[in-house]
C-alpha cells in the first residue's frame, strides 16, 4: 500500500450537479513531489481541498499511511497547505504567522521560538520576523506561507498554484526554491498548477487532469514523449503538438495515413496497433521538434509533404517555423538547423525518429 491513496474519489457540489471530480484513483509514495496539472476549472483545487478536509467528499476514500482521513477535520489530518493567495494573516507579524500552528498545539515557548527560527531560516526570511505582511513583497509573503507550512512538519504538503501570483522571474526562482525545501524536509508534496512548464520542471510525477478525470499519470518525460491521450499531447509542450485529420489506409503490407496534403507511410512499429483502424478516421499528432525540414526535395522514409514557410519566430536557441499542411493552417516546427530561414521558402517535411502519435477519435486515447 502506498503512502497516500486516493480511491474512486468523487465530488459534486450540488446533488444533481455535474461530477467535478470523477472517479479519481491515485497512489503517491512517501517523499514524492506530485504535480496536478490541468486547465483552469478541471477540478485540481477541489481535489486538494478534499485532501485537506476543507471540502467534503461525495464518494470514495483517501488514506494516509493506510488510515482513512475522510472523516477527520482539517486540523486532525496532519496536512499543511499553501494557498494561492498565500493566506498569511495581515494582523499578525511574520513570527506570529509562523508560530500560530505551534501555539495552538500549546508547545513550550522556547521550542516554538526554535522551530519558527528554523523554518524561517529554511526560506531565508530570518530578518523579517518582526514585520507585518503589508510591509513585504509578494515573494516574501510567499516565503512566510512556506515557513508556516513546514513548521508543523506535516505528513503531506499541499500547494494550490502557489506561484501564480508572482512575477515571471521570481516564479522560476521559487520553483527551484520550493523543490529544494521539499527535498531538504523530506516531505511528500502535491503541487497544483495549470502551467505545464512549471509542472515539467518540478514534478517527480505529473497527474494530468481534464474535466474532473485523470488523463495520465507519469514522469515529465513520459507525459511528454508518450502522451496517453490527445488532450495530454495538446496540453503539454510549447508549442503544442500539431494535429492532422488522417484516415488509415492499407496498401499491401504497408499502412498509410492519408490526409489533405499528405500521404504518410506509417512506421512498422505501429502496424499492429493500427490494424483495427484501417478505413477509419483518426487524429495524427506530431510534436514540433519531430517535424524535420529540408530545403531540398527529400522523399523516402518518414516523408510527410512539401510545404511553404509562412512565418518565422526566432527564439535565440531555436526558431519556430509556421506553415500549413492540409487543413491545419498553423503547423509549428521547432528547428535548430534552419534558424534563419526566410518566409516563403519551400521545404520538404518529414517525421523524425518515427515520432508520430495516433489518437482514437471516440475515446481520444492514444493508439499504440
Amino acid at each position, binding site marked *: 500500500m502506498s503512502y497516500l491513496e486516493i480511491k474512486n474519489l468523487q465530488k459534486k457540489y450540488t446533488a444533481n450537479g455535474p461530477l467535478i471530480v470523477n472517479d479519481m484513483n491515485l497512489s503517491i509514495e512517501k517523499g514524492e513531489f506530485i504535480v496536478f496539472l490541468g486547465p483552469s476549472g478541471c477540478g485540481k483545487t477541489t481535489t486538494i481541498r478534499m485532501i485537506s478536509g476543507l471540502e467534503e467528499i461525495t464518494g470514495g476514500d483517501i488514506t494516509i499511511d493506510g488510515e482513512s482521513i475522510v472523516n477527520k477535520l482539517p486540523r486532525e489530518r496532519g496536512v499543511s497547505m499553501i494557498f494561492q493567495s498565500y493566506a498569511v*494573516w495581515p494582523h499578525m507579524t511574520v513570527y506570529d504567522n509562523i508560530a500560530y500552528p505551534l501555539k495552538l498545539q500549546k508547545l513550550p515557548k522556547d521550542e516554538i521560538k526554535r522551530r519558527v527560527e528554523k523554518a524561517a531560516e529554511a526560506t531565508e526570511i530570518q530578518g523579517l520576523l518582526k514585520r507585518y505582511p503589508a510591509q513585504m513583497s509578494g515573494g516574501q509573503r510567499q516565503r512566510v506561507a512556506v515557513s508556516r507550512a513546514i513548521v508543523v512538519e506535516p505528513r503531506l504538503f499541499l500547494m494550490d498554484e502557489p506561484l501564480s501570483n508572482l512575477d515571471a522571474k521570481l516564479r522560476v526562482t521559487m520553483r527551484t526554491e520550493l523543490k529544494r525545501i521539499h527535498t531538504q524536509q523530506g516531505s511528500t508534496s502535491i503541487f497544483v498548477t495549470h502551467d505545464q512548464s512549471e509542472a515539467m520542471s518540478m514534478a517527480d510525477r505529473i497527474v494530468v487532469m481534464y474535466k474532473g478525470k485523470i488523463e495520465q499519470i507519469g514522469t515529465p518525460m513520459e507525459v511528454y514523449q508518450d502522451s496517453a491521450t490527445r488532450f495530454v499531447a495538446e496540453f503539454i509542450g510549447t508549442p503544442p503538438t500539431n494535429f492532422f485529420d488522417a484516415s488509415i489506409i492499407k496498401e499491401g503490407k504497408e499502412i498509410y495515413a492519408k490526409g489533405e496534403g499528405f500521404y504518410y507511410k506509417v512506421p512498422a512499429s505501429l502496424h499492429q496497433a493500427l490494424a483495427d483502424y484501417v478505413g477509419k478516421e483518426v487524429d495524427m499528432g506530431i510534436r514540433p521538434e519531430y517535424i524535420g525540414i529540408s530545403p531540398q526535395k527529400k522523399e523516402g522514409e518518414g516523408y510527410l509533404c512539401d510545404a511553404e514557410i509562412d512565418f518565422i519566430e526566432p527564439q535565440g536557441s531555436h526558431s519556430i517555423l509556421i506553415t500549413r499542411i492540409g487543413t491545419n493552417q498553423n503547423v509549428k516546427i521547432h528547428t535548430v538547423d534552419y534558424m534563419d530561414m526566410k518566409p516563403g521558402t519551400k521545404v520538404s517535411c518529414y517525421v523524425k525518429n518515427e515520432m508520430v502519435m495516433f489518437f482514437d477519435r471516440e475515446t481520444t486515447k492514444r493508439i499504440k
Partner: protein
Amino acid sequence: MMDRLSAVQKCVFAIILAGMVMLVTIPLLFFITVSFSNATEMTQFPKRMFPSGEVTVYVEPEEGGKYELFYDYKDGNGYTSIITTNSASKLEKHFARQYAVTIDGDELLEEFAKTRTEGAREFTFKKDMFYNFRQFFKIVPNAGPALKNSIIVSLYTILISLSLGSLAGYAIARYKFKGREQINVGLLIVRMFPTVGISIPMAVMLIKMGLYDTMLGLAFLYSIPNIALTSWITSSIFIGINKELEEASFVFGANSVQTFMKITLPMAFPAMAASSMYSFLTAWNDTISALILTNENQTLALVVYKAIGTTSSGIQYAAAGSIVLIIPALVFTFIIRKYIGQMWGGVEL
C-alpha cells in the same frame, strides 16, 4: 492647457473645501467663544471673536461709602453705569455673575477705597476662564452624575451593538440561508426608523422589565438601529475577508471558535471600531429618547439640552455644557482613528 485646467480645478476644490470646513468649524468656534465669555461680553455687539482674559471697570466714588461702577468706559464717552453699591456681598455677586471674576467682596471695597484719595480711575481684574464650566455644574446639579450616565450608556450601547451586530454580520457574510437578502434589506430599514418612534413602545416594555430609567434600558433602545448598522458594516467587511485566511487557520490546527476569535474578528476590527464610533455617538448625543425613557437618571446630552432650552439668561453656561459634551466624543473619535491608522503596520483594508 491641462495644467491650467488642473490649477483651476485645484482652486475650485480648495474653495469648496474651505467652505465646508468653515461651515463646520464656525458654529463650533462660536460656541467655544461663548463658553469662555462672561455675561457682559454676551450682551455686547458685535461679539468679540476671542473672549478677553481680563475685565476693566471704571470706578467713581459716591456718597455714603458707595461706588459707581462703569463698564466699557471709553474716554468718558459711551460708558455704561452698571451698579452703585457699598455692599461687599453685592459687589462679589455682581463681579462673579457679570464679569466671571471671582474675587472677595471686601477685597474689592478695599481696592475701590483708593479712589477716595486718588479720584475716579480704572481697575483691571483677571477673568476666571472656567467660570462658566464650574457654573454649569453648579446650576445643573445633576450634570456630574449625568456625565457618568452618558459614559455608562455609551459603553453598554457599544458592547451590545458590537457583539450582536458583528455576529449577525458574520452570519450574513458567510452562510447561505433562506431570507438572507430580506434580512439584509430589513437591517437597513430598521436603521431608517427614527429611534424616537420606537421610544414609546420601548418605554412600555422597559417598565414591564423593570429597566425603565436605567442606563441598560436606554442602551437597549440605542442598540436597535446600531445592531443593524453594525451588522451591515461588518458583513460587508467579512465578505471582503478572503475565505482562505480562515481556511488556513482550520488547516493549521484551529477550531471554528479559535478561528473566529483569532483571525476573523481581529481582521474585522477596523470596521468594528468604526461602527462602535457610530454607536457611541448615537448614545452620547441623543436627547429625545433619553427624555422619554429616563426620569432621574438623565444623560449629559439631555441635561445640556434642558439647560439650553430653559435658561434664557445664561446661554454661556449651556455653551460650556456643550463643550463638556463634545470633548469626550472628540477624544473617543481621535483615539479610534489613530488606532485604526496604526494597526498592522499600516495595512489598508
